[in-house]
């Protein structure tokens, strides 16, 4: 009897792959514009020809991606080694590298996790192969066995080509750390990417877009990455308050420079240009809970590109936050808006670097989820009838820190919620991670290669819904996925989670979530 059942089960099993194969073929043929994995040539094309290439030709403008003006090119290997030696001396990266050169088996299990490799099929995009670029330098120049072997075998050591190769490889990686999930030796390739970029930055090789923004944040007049002056910030906040009064039917404030407030709120500063709804949604939640919070005019930018390429920058940016928390005598902690990397850098490093007083760091999704759980927020369930899917920003989801909280919020007021097939800790990077989203020159690379897997995952969730929203609670992911949706022709609108909360939250006494403005 048992044997019979087993045969029957096998029989069903045999027909299933055929059916799946059919679906896959169908998808390949007509229902998706996705192509076969790209060749190296195709990828180079994607790099070399930004979308508006004809424009650049007309202007005769070179597309520069890395900053290294005025630095002697032939001197790079020596300078790289000097920078690496200094970093190893003053940090505990040495301990990590010592461990990794022993455990790295180069088994390539990480390949199945990497969305860049999935799109290119290029061996240079295998995470452990990329990490090996740096581990090889460490082994050759910073271990006794390596130095001895180098002398015996006449190995000349680090070459200029190798530095060049690292400069390319470490920015092909989006530092999403998904490969870490699969590594049997527990190697964090994202950390190696970070260290590689850090050393490169020390010798002047870093993406121009990041360096320019960081310079403005650390030494510019406005002290934020988008160069928004305080007067413009105040004007914007005033405008948003008017908007909220019109549509929500109550007065909601953006408190500015309130001394002794419980929470210091920092949004990724680009939200003040691009994401009106996200900010209004957050203000509405904080209004509904009667929270004491403030935006500080001394520092209102949560963005910290240091996490992507330099520990010096990482520390300096966080010290600016500490200064502001001190100035405003913040009582409870730091509240970070919808932004993955800003949340991670503050959460994991603020208290490492804080000189005087440690403070808890809370992401707005954690905060709002707690309020939903406590029943302090009222929603109109009828407001969002569209199909909704949720993108997990790597920086908050990979460690398992913020995975369930946003889903709790979504279920509180959205009925048609469809998960992507890879979600949570296992979520796939938007393709613009690790700061690459700020580099406009490589948009075709980001949307056709880095973001290709994400595009497929979003597309799978669309069929059958009435309209479609993709939620991405992160300024980086928002920009990137908007471009992915546009370049891949996917019929979905990209929003933040608080954008939808803004629509559905009920604040006024009449119980109406949305008052159509009269103009």
């Amino acid at each position: 009897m048992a044997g019979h059942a087993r045969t029957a089960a096998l029989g069903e099993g045999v027909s299933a792959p055929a059916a799946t194969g059919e679906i896959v073929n169908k998808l390949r043929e007509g229902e998706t514009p996705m192509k076969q994995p790209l060749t190296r040539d195709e990828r180079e094309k994607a790099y070399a020809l930004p979308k508006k290439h004809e424009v650049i030709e007309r202007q005769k403008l070179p597309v520069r991606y890395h900053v290294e003006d005025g630095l002697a090119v032939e001197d790079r290997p020596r300078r790289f080694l000097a920078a690496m030696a200094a970093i190893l001396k003053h940090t505990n990266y040495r301990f990590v590298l010592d461990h990794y050169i022993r455990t790295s088996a180069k088994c390539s299990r990480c390949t199945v996790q990497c969305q860049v490799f999935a799109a290119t099929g290029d061996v240079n995009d295998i995470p452990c192969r990329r990490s090996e670029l740096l581990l090889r330098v460490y082994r050759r120049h910073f271990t006794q066995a390596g130095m001895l072997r180098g002398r015996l075998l006449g190995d000349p050591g680090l070459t200029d080509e190798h530095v060049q190769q690292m400069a390319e490889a470490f920015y092909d990686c989006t530092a999403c750390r998904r490969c870490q999930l699969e590594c049997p030796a527990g190697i964090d390739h994202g950390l190696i990417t970070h260290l590689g970029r850090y050393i490169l930055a020390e010798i002047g090789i870093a993406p121009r877009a990041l360096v320019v923004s960081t310079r403005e944040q650390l030494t510019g007049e406005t002290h934020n990455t988008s160069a928004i002056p305080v007067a413009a910030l105040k004007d914007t906040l005033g405008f948003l308050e008017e908007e909220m009064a019109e549509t929500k039917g109550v007065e909601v404030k953006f408190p500015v420079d309130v001394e002794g407030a419980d929470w210091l709120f920092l949004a990724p500063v680009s939200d003040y240009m691009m994401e009106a709804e996200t900010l209004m949604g957050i203000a509405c939640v904080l209004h509904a809970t009667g929270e004491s919070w403030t935006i500080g005019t001394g520092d209102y930018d949560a963005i910290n590109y240091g996490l992507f390429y330099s520990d010096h920058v990482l520390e300096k940016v966080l010290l600016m936050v500490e200064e502001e928390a001190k100035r405003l005598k913040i009582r409870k902690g730091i509240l970070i808006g919808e932004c993955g990397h800003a949340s991670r850098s503050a959460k994991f490093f603020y208290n490492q670097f804080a000189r005087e007083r440690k403070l808890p760091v809370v992401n707005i999704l954690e905060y709002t989820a707690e309020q939903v759980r406590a029943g302090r927020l009222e929603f109109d369930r009828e407001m969002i009838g569209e199909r909704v899917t949720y993108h997990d920003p790597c920086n908050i989801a990979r460690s398992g820190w913020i995975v369930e909280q946003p889903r709790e919020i979504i279920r509180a007021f959205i009925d048609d919620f469809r998960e992507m097939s890879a979600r949570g800790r296992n979520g796939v990077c938007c393709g613009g991670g690790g700061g690459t989203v700020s580099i406009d020159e490589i948009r075709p690379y980001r949307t056709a290669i880095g973001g290709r897997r994400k595009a497929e995952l979003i597309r799978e969730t669309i069929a059958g819904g009435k309209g479609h929203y993709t939620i991405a609670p992160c300024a980086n992911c928002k920009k990137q996925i908007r471009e992915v949706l546009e370049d891949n022709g996917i019929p979905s609108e990209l929003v933040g989670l608080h954008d939808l909360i803004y629509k559905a939250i009920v604040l006024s006494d009449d119980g109406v979530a949305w008052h159509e403005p009269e103009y």
Partner: protein
Amino acid sequence: MPDFEYNGKKVVVDEDGFIQDPDVWNEELANALAQVEGVDQLTDEHWNIVNYLRNYYQQFGIAPMVRKLCKETKTPLKRVYELFPSGPAKGACKVAGLPKPTGCV
């Protein structure tokens, strides 16, 4: 820094073609920059946006929030993208002679 040439004149621009000195901006230059951005002819609708951006920039030293731009010029975001194919931040700001937006914009 490269030069951008139009009607026999030259202005300094950055790698992405944004003019470096906002004071050299004039309507003739705006027309030339528009060509580069894939806009053949600046219509009244274009000028409405460009003038608003310039006025805001002169007052605050930065471009306005996208939503404010749409509301004050009474132009839906979709229409802005139709008018300036590379969008409000990269397209319209360039034509209006604002510096290139930085950060996650």
